[in-house]
């Protein structure tokens, strides 16, 4: 259960840190909490795993990371655990999920692979396929990005009252 005061902290932190000396004082004012309480609640939320981290959101292309590939793999059920853990340990792999296969689409493991250039990302895919002995995979190249925003989490209606 997340207390209404904790939600005020989460809402403020989702809005982004101003680049000032004491950004949490500014966010605490938005949340109508003292800075010390705001920080303590944020630390507790991090300890509970609700707040993963407070970090930079970047624009990959502008940052010179042009090779961003979604690669889907067909992995036998008994190997899924080992292959998933193996792919997750790769620096170039940012996301690795098991998802259900569907009609004419037998792939059950999804990875996002990033490198400076597409060719480099493709080499990583080839190496992973070889090392994991997974010939059945598919590279889904990005034609264009239509939307990229941070999710907005909000409290349940009943929590609005404090």
């Amino acid at each position, binding site marked *: 259960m*997340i207390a209404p005061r904790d939600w005020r902290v*989460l809402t403020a*932190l*989702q809005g*982004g*840190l101003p*680049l000032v*000396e*004491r*950004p949490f*004082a500014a966010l605490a004012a938005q949340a109508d909490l003292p800075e010390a309480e705001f*920080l303590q609640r*944020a*630390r507790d939320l991090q300890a*509970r*795993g*609700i*707040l993963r*981290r*407070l*970090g*930079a*959101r*970047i*624009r990959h292309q*502008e*940052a*010179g*990371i042009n090779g961003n590939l*979604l690669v889907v793999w067909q992995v036998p059920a008994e190997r*899924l655990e080992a292959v998933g*853990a193996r*792919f*997750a340990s790769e*620096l170039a*792999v*940012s*996301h*690795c*999920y*098991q*998802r*259900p296969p*569907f009609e004419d*689409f037998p792939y059950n493991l*999804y990875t996002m692979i*990033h490198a400076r250039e597409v060719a480099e990302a493709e080499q990583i895919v080839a190496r992973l396929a070889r090392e994991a002995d997974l010939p059945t995979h*598919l590279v*889904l*190249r*990005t*034609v*264009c990005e*239509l*939307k*990229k*925003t*941070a*999710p907005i*989490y909000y409290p349940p209606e009943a929590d609005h009252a404090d």
Partner: protein
Amino acid sequence: MTDREARVLTAAQQGLPLKERPFAALGERCGLTEAATRETLSQLQEQGLLREISAFLDPAQLGWSSTLACVTVPADRLEEVSLLLAAWPEVTHSYLRDHPYNLWFTVIAPTAEACGELLRRFTAITGLAPVQNLPATRVFKVHVSFAPEDLVS
């Protein structure tokens, strides 16, 4: 990107400490003063490399649901469909990909039912079907951060 910018951006992606002066702590990790760290971040923001420094929450810990969906959209309807997805806050990412299922998007909402409802609404409005609903059944990794050598050009 300069070496200094790359170091700051890498450290900022790894995360800021929840301390009164987080930019001073970030600067220590990069060998920079607090003022130089903030200045570098604001330059990165002006250049458009840095969108913002904000909270990454764990949807599962919040009890929220997310899913990935894909659907086939005819080329002459892409603009209309793209505008529709742009207007829905539950849709956080959408991409065109070179596959018969050419539109892929992620949905995040308080419940799995709400995710499914959004996909049904998508079909009701656009007439496009089937929309494949592909929620993660196991998460092995979720993290995006890049090493300094990847960021220096």
